[in-house]
């Protein structure tokens, strides 16, 4: 019964995983009046409560993806706020932060409000708009931070394009201090990445494709960390893909710079070899790197250098991908594969705990964005995701809720996914019909 507000839901016999209070215990969770009314063993809800026996499935705070592209306004043929948020709910997300590189870009209050209205109308997932740093994302004058924050923007980024001039980035960080606002950096030195379409290395040499060196990311991350140190402002590095960037961020954090970072599931799951045979579904920016980088990303997630997993969900219609490699659009969809990949790689291959995964996918993004979430404490808004960590499934085109299906993981088998997503007490995804009445 997706879409219906249930007055009370009692999730029985779950594995309650709450990173905000470091809890990983068998128990029940009661949702009443859109809030978490109680957690603990042997709960008894009110008589009218919908009751679900979870049989030890995971109950985590609603997942939060701090980096998606919803494409609306302007590129509704790739994705809309409605389809994108449905994909989010199906992936277990209750909040997503959408990047401003729409058409026109989200650089003013009007577009921010439009996005929020559309998201509210769809009602699948809370949308947190990230506004542009610079007007038109052109890297010159700053947007009206105060106005945008009042309208509901949660951070500022020119994602999709880097802030080219160091002086403009400095200005943005300084101005952000007035509002304790977060600046998200798409860290790329375009002078070094220009015309590259994959990682620079032996695979690019073999395929005869122009490469993007790790240094294009590293120098930009270093620049922005220096500027964060200089200004004392809060900086977040988006989609970290290189070993060098992990090391630079680690050092900056040790020095006390207010920097946080995210990586995307494809950077801990794939390497440049996925591009073999000119597979445009493995083309993204930053590009897939080497095994050495992939290892460094995983270690960065393990030691807390990288705070969050964010999908960089980048839907593209088939025309943008079924073409010559150099002409193909960058990016892949990620909302419906993020959790399955985290379970596959981080949980099973790398031994991360369920708590660590919940921290990377809900608690940390919430605290970086300073929004409520990432917690199952009593009284909090009921954003809850139920995960069956063992459920096998195959990712196929027809099962995707996103309007686009540009994923390198199509056809692959996974074990584990979200089966029930509850946003503010409302069921937004119910794979198995657990809450169907009757």
């Amino acid at each position, binding site marked *: 019964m997706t879409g219906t507000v249930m007055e009370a839901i009692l999730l029985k016999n779950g594995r309650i995983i709450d990173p905000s209070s470091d809890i990983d215990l068998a128990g029940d969770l009661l949702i009443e009046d859109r809030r978490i009314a109680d957690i603990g063993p042997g709960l008894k809800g009110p008589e009218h409560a919908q009751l679900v026996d979870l049989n030890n499935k995971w109950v985590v705070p609603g997942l939060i993806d701090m980096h998606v592209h919803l494409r609306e306004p302007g590129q509704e043929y790739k994705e809309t706020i409605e389809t994108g948020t449905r994909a989010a709910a199906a992936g277990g997300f209750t909040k997503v932060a959408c990047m401003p590189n729409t058409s026109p870009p989200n650089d003013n209050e009007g577009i921010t409000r439009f996005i929020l209205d559309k998201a509210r109308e769809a009602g699948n997932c809370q949308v947190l708009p990230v506004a542009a740093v610079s007007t038109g994302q052109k890297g010159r004058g700053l947007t009206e931070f105060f106005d945008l924050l009042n309208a509901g923007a949660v951070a500022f980024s020119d994602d999709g394009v880097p802030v080219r001039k160091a002086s403009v980035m400095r200005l943005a960080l300084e101005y952000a201090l007035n509002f304790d606002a977060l600046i998200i950096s798409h860290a790329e030195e375009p002078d070094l990445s*220009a*015309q590259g379409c994959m990682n*620079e*290395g*032996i695979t*690019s*040499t*073999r*395929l*005869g*494709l*122009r*490469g993007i060196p790790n240094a294009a990311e590293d120098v930009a991350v270093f620049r922005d960390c220096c500027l964060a140190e200089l200004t004392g402002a809060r900086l977040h590095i988006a989609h970290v893909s290189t070993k060098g960037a992990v090391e630079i961020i680690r050092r900056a954090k040790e020095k006390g710079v207010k920097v946080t970072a995210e990586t995307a599931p494809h950077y801990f799951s794939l390497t440049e070899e996925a591009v073999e*045979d*000119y597979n445009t579904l493995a083309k993204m920016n930053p590009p897939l790197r080497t095994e050495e980088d992939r290892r460094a990303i995983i270690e960065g997630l393990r030691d807390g250098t990288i705070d969050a997993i964010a999908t960089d969900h980048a839907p593209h219609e088939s*025309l943008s991908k*079924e*073409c*010559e*490699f*150099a*002409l193909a659009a960058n990016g892949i969809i990620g909302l419906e594969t993020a959790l399955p990949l985290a379970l596959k790689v981080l949980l099973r291959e790398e031994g991360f705990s369920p708590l660590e995964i919940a921290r990377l996918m809900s608690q940390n993004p919430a605290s970086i964005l300073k929004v409520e979430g990432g917690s199952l404490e009593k009284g909090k808004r009921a954003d809850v995701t139920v995960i069956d960590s063992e459920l096998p499934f195959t990712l196929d085109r027809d099962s995707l809720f996103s309007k686009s299906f540009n994923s390198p993981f199509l056809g692959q088998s996974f074990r584990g996914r979200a089966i029930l997503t509850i946003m503010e007490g409302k069921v937004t995804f119910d794979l198995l019909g657990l809450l169907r009445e009757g």
Partner: protein
Amino acid sequence: MTKLKSRHILGISHLDREEISFILNTAESLKEILERPIKKVPPLRGKTIVNLFFEPSTRTKLSFELAAKRLSADTVGISASTSSVVKGETLIDTARNIEAMRPDIIVMRHSLSGAPHLLTRYIDSAVINAGDGTNEHPSQALLDLMSVKEHFGRIEGLNITIIGDIAHSRVAHSDILAFSKMGAKVTVCGPATMMPPGIETLGCRALYDLRQAVRDADVVMALRIQKERQGMALFPSEREYARVFGLDVGIFSVIKESCVIMHPGPINRGVEMSPEVADSSRAIILDQVTNGVAVRMALFTLLLTDSREE
């Protein structure tokens, strides 16, 4: 071996040693036709070959066209200026439309790496890559192999040195793969700004010193040099390039007596190669051109024989 394993000729990377030998042997036996007074035989009568060239080309296009005509195939040439690409049609649509007219082979040159690979996913005709971006130019490498084999009687154990823009040369890429697959030792040499990362993984060694690179060579091949790439000059001047990496008469005192000089053409005389070297008795550059027709005849024959047996 009686037929190729590959349905298409996308690159040397897709061919194994046995297939390469098979192509060379076929080319050697077909070459004789080019010396006849009437240079035409009937095996591909009724077959249609489309030459789809999205980049300007003189010798490669002519070579493919002559090869087809020598075998009595019908050929149609389409070049970028006359194609509907300028009207905004996608490559896939262009290919599907050509396919609908039932050609047997599409020979394609394209400025982007992987373009012919893309084509094979959407059409049934055999595809021959006549050069894709900075990836491969397999028929050029095959004619280079043929020319070397013709001169030395073997390829195995020879030292092959390739000089120039290794990073942006599809000829270098295909030649490195081809010569190393056939058992030669390949050395590449050029400005470090034109040396791609991990080039050794293709099966060669990379040296920056020209004299050292050519000293033991049996074959020295200079590549056509282009100063600007993506709007950036990759070496200071043609004058300096000629002095550091150009082949001039001074090279004769360094290379072995038996060493031959090659060039895939067209030559920038005075830059990568001086006229005295290009026109010397050591040069087998025009043999390369002749063998190009024979190799392409072999590719057509083998690809179409293949489909007939299926």
